[in-house]
């Protein structure tokens, strides 16, 4: 403050023509340096993170501010459930009114995501596949990233899986796993007729597989589900999906030339390609879910 005053006095004197400032640059440099240092010391991220109380207070304050701003936005949003809202526009009318004719699916959402927006769903399946591949990359057991201690633990786990009784889990798994998988298959196959579809049904099948694996151990699972089957099902599902949906490219966007029989809406064999696409998606999702479980617990499928 004092220095500032001094400089100001000097400048005033210079303007009045009373004296010449020889070392004004020095003043300015020292002043600006000091200010910069102060600013950095006050607002450095490290200091804030080091001060736990200040950091917590700031986090809560920022979140509360965010909630407040968003609530004021919600206040101005159109009314909940009002039929004349701008979201309920002609796109939705088109999907609902000509959906049955154009896709043949009784479940409008299935018709939408697997016919009108099938490439979006293809990308979703690809996202899942990429995720499971990156998890394989990070966690799959091999000699370089596995220590002897972990291997010993794994062997102990296998031993317990084989020899321990665990009657509730084993009998429960034996009875429940087939039922859960059967229900998942039902949900997948009825994706175009009732709520559900490839993603939810695939998750249910994956849950059944996880229950079986946790009851009987990885080794028994590997008698019918190895890494090879996993890759074959995933890649096969994706390729089948790609081939099924590429017909739109080859026949033009309006499906000219090669019309797939739509069947009677409501029958199980109807709705063009929606049923096979649902099966593909269901297989991919089931494999992915079980793959996540197996890789996270044992590091191997």
């Amino acid at each position, binding site marked *: 403050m004092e220095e500032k005053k001094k400089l100001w006095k000097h400048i005033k004197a210079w303007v009045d023509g009373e004296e010449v400032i020889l070392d004004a640059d020095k003043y300015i440099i020292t002043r600006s340096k000091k200010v910069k240092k102060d600013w950095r010391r006050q607002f450095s991220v490290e200091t804030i*993170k080091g001060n736990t109380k200040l950091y*917590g207070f700031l*986090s*809560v304050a*920022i*979140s*509360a501010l*965010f*909630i407040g701003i*968003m*609530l004021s*936005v*919600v*206040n*101005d*949003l*159109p*009314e*909940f*459930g*009002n*039929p004349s*809202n701008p*979201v*309920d526009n002609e*796109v*939705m*009318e088109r*999907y*609902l*009114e000509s959906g*049955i004719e154009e896709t043949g699916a*009784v*479940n*409008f*959402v299935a018709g*939408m*995501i697997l016919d009108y*927006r099938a490439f*979006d769903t293809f990308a*979703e399946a690809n*996202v*899942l596949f*990429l*995720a*499971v591949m*990156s*998890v394989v990359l*990070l*966690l799959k057991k091999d000699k370089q*990233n596995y220590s002897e201690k972990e291997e010993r633990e794994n062997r102990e786990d296998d031993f317990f899986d084989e020899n321990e009784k665990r009657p509730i889990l084993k009998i429960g798994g034996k009875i429940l796993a087939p039922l859960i998988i059967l229900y998942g298959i039902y949900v997948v196959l009825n994706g175009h007729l*009732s*709520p559900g579809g490839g*993603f939810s049904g695939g998750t249910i099948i994956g849950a059944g597989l996880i229950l079986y694996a946790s009851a009987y151990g990885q080794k028994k699972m590997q008698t019918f589900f190895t890494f090879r089957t996993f890759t074959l099902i995933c890649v096969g599902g994706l390729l089948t999906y790609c081939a099924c949906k590429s017909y739109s490219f080859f026949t033009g966007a309006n499906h000219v030339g090669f019309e797939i029989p739509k069947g009677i*809406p*409501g029958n199980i064999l109807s709705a063009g390609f929606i049923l096979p696409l649902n099966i593909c998606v269901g297989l991919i999702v089931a494999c992915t879910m079980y793959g*996540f479980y197996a*890789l*996270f617990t044992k590091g191997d499928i």
Partner: protein
Amino acid sequence: MNHLGTNFYEAVSVILFGIGFMNLLLQNNLIKKFIGLNIMDTAVYLFLAAKGYVMGRVAPVLTDGIIDAYYYINPIPAGLVLTGIVVSVSVTAFSLALVQRLYKHYGTLNMDEIMRISREEEGE
């Protein structure tokens, strides 16, 4: 315009989003951080589902052979929520795999500890 009383689903989803964000900022444990991220995802699903609902209409599955756009709710947010769920599952699995590798290397899940140890290792 004063719809805060009728838009309580949206309001709750916004508050949930804020809670998840706070969790993301405050927690030091990496797994708890990703739980916060998942709470934020859930808030977005709730928001989308609330936007798609229309009062007095039924779910978008053909019922009694009625083909009428004014009988069913909006099917588009359902598809968007599906996309969101898939992306959220993938991101969560990937990040948890990274956390597992970090834990194997550093022996802790605390982020500050991990930063400290990694800085020490770099310094040596």
